[in-house]
């Protein structure tokens, strides 16, 4: 196996692992947040606007972790710097 194949394998496998492992935590966290918000909405419907706004902001905070993982995996697949480096070297030969 030459280095090009190794880099391709490592990038693709790591991209899959990144998005798979990185979405577990935010998924659990968002589920807990929504469940708690729903039960507090049922208890206090008067505070609906405040709860909803705080829920949205909190969900965005939690979701950004999954988005980081997504961005990293997208970079690994479509804009991989190591891959581009190897391609440039191969073209220069």
């Amino acid at each position, binding site marked *: 196996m030459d280095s090009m194949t190794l880099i391709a394998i490592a990038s693709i496998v790591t991209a899959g692992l990144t998005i798979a492992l990185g979405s577990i935590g935010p998924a659990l966290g968002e589920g807990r947040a929504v469940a708690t918000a729903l039960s507090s909405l049922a208890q206090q419907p*008067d505070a609906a*606007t405040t709860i909803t*706004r705080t829920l949205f*902001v909190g969900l*965005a905070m939690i979701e950004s972790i999954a*988005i980081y993982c*997504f*961005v990293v995996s997208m970079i690994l697949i479509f804009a991989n710097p190591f891959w581009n480096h190897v391609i440039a070297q191969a073209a220069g030969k």
Partner: protein
Amino acid sequence: MRLSPDQIILWQYGFLKLNGTIAFTWGLMAVLAFGSMLVTRKLSMDLKRSRWQNLLEIIVTGIEKQIADVGLRHPDKYIGFLGTLFLFIALASLCTIIPGYEPPTGSLSTTAALALCVLVAVPFFGIEEQGLGGYLKSYAEPTIIMLPFNIISELSRTLALAVRLFGNMMSGTMILAILLTTTPFIFPIAMSALGLLTGMVQAYIFSILAAVYIASATRARKPTLKPTAKH
């Protein structure tokens, strides 16, 4: 595959490049500026008013109410900044229904610029509200040990703002492009409808987070002004 509209080069002269991001941003700026100029050209104070004036009044009062709900006491002072952020991001994602258009917020340079605006605006409003000393003291708020962590959080939340908006917008166009190659007829429409929803939610979240950051910078030293339960 294209990650962002940065890679659409429309015009190039030496090192000067006019890429798709800049062109779409200029287009949005022109639509927002000339649209509101046309509407506000003849405003009426009585009950009979044009439908466009009604639309703008709904938008402006809605944004003002949201800013006031976050805890900023004079929303008209901040609406110029926060409202512009919201309207720009919301229009950038709404215009995705136009064919051939790509949202400029799907490029990391645009979102980084917007997040840098927030990074500058927070100390600006904070110093304006509580003076230079008061604002700087808020960095050492519980104890002086928290000083580096407060500075790190200031920087990391700027990064989070930029990457969150970029990731959401980029993922929308990326999923559309992937779906177009596999199931080209119905599914892309459903996904682009979902993309409109996420775009609006992201615009809301970006401006609300900016408002929360500004609110925490402007009243960090006044614990008596915390909003009590209203209901």
